[in-house]
């Protein structure tokens, strides 16, 4: 079966909820990146020693999930539901195809490596 990579940019304080929703759903693992980003939500102004400046980049987390192609839609739903606050800056979920996967420990391939 084909595999996909689901990447989710979320608000940091949502990590715990998203993780629990995904574990509950039954994903086998995930990887988290600390990132900073901007989009609609454009950062805020700060003042340092009298000078105003824009902090463009807002701390976000990226969650990366390897899943089988048939799980993708459900996984995306789970993340969207768990990560949503309704406020600007909630983030994105995007999916890319995976050509192959290997588990380092055992050498198992593709779906067996999940």
């Amino acid at each position, binding site marked *: 079966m084909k595999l996909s990579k689901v990447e989710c940019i979320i608000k940091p304080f949502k990590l715990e909820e998203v993780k629990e929703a995904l574990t509950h759903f039954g994903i086998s693992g995930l990887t988290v990146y600390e990132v900073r980003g901007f989009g609609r939500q454009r950062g805020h102004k700060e*003042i*340092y*020693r*009298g*000078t105003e*400046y824009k902090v463009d980049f807002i701390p976000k987390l990226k969650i990366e999930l390897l899943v089988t192609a048939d799980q993708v839609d459900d996984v995306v739903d789970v993340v969207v539901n768990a990560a949503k606050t309704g406020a600007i800056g909630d983030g994105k979920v995007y999916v890319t195809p995976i050509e192959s996967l290997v588990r380092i420990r055992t050498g198992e391939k593709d779906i067996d490596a999940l």
Partner: protein
Amino acid sequence: MKSNGMMGLTGRLFRSRALLGAAALLLMAGAAWAQEEAGPSAEQFSLNNLLLLLSGALVFWMHAGFACVESGLTQAKNTVNILSKNVIIVCLGGVSYFIIGFGLMYPGEFNHWIGFGGSGFGPVSPEDYGDYTIFTDFFFQAVFAATAATIISGAVAERIKFASFIVVALLFVTFIYPIAGSWVWGGGWLTDLGFKDFAGSTVVHSIGGWAALTGAVILGPRRGKYTADGIRPIVGHSMPLATIGVFILFLGWFGFNGGSVLAMDSGAVSMVYVTTFLAGCAGGIGAMLASWIVLRKPDITMILNGILAGLVGITAGADTIAPWPSLAVGAIAGVIVVFSVVTLDRIKVDDPVGAISVHLVCGVWGTLAVGIFSFNPDHGFLTQLIGIVAIGVFVLVTSTLAWLALKHSPLGLRVSEEEEVNGLDTYEHGLEAYPEFKSTTGIL
């Protein structure tokens, strides 16, 4: 050598005499001073030494404070550089002051402009030296000298070559500071004039501040600080470091000012503790309010600068400004520092840590404040002004010459663009301040 010691004392006596006079006026000096003229009792002598040695240790401790404040308010990529400068300047300052500075600052009998009393000191009778031993005297003066040099470090941070900084700082602590210092504390012409600078608003802080100013101007601003779009702040990398630094400096200031009484005279020392404490507190409050009102946020870096500003402000008159007015001196310094920081940025003088505003601007303010608030009628505004200008001109000229000479020497003054962009730590020191991949400490 012994006579040098004795003569060095002569100069210093001007400080304690002026103090005693003022204090006596209001504090009804009791039995303690009666013995002064005849030399202190054995116990009083011990008390003086103990006070000065512990105060000196506290002043030494201020170098840790400078190291923390300066590294906290600059970028992580230059942290090893800043720390190295602060560490080595104490070492070099101590040794060079021993060999040259001390003899230059307290030359004994001299022409009141410049003189040299000799290097180091040989075996002398500690009891015959005066109110305290020559060792005590040297130690307390040496830690002061290194302090003055450290002030420069912050203003020229993140762009000066390590070796060049060492050269200028050495010239400064070995020649510029002691010569100007000898005019006020060494029995020189400003002593004669009645210029009053108790613990060094001018002698330490402004002198350091003037050299910091010329350095910052001659070096020019850090790349990217002043752009076509306006000022782009370069934010310091660690507020805990900066805050710890200010606490250290505040603590050290009790030694700086308290020890400058130069005798364990309870009334004077304890009043100095109170005025120092209140002025520092008021400085922090003044800066918080100014930054909250004018800049819309209680900027912690301004509060920290404000505390230092209040302390610098009271330093010239900690023994002759009463507690109530000390609150005013400190609070005004705290407000001044906020506007000074903003103004220097407007005129594109790039001082990463606010050293010029704190030490120079508030050093001047503190020296003038003596002319306004001192309870000793001998202290006049005009005399204070003359001292400030005289020393200012001297340090401006000499430090400018030093900076320029170095700039046009083969060594040069400023690091390359590549080095500045990537950080001085990697290039000059071959080591990062926080070198870890956080998670790969398994292998690194």
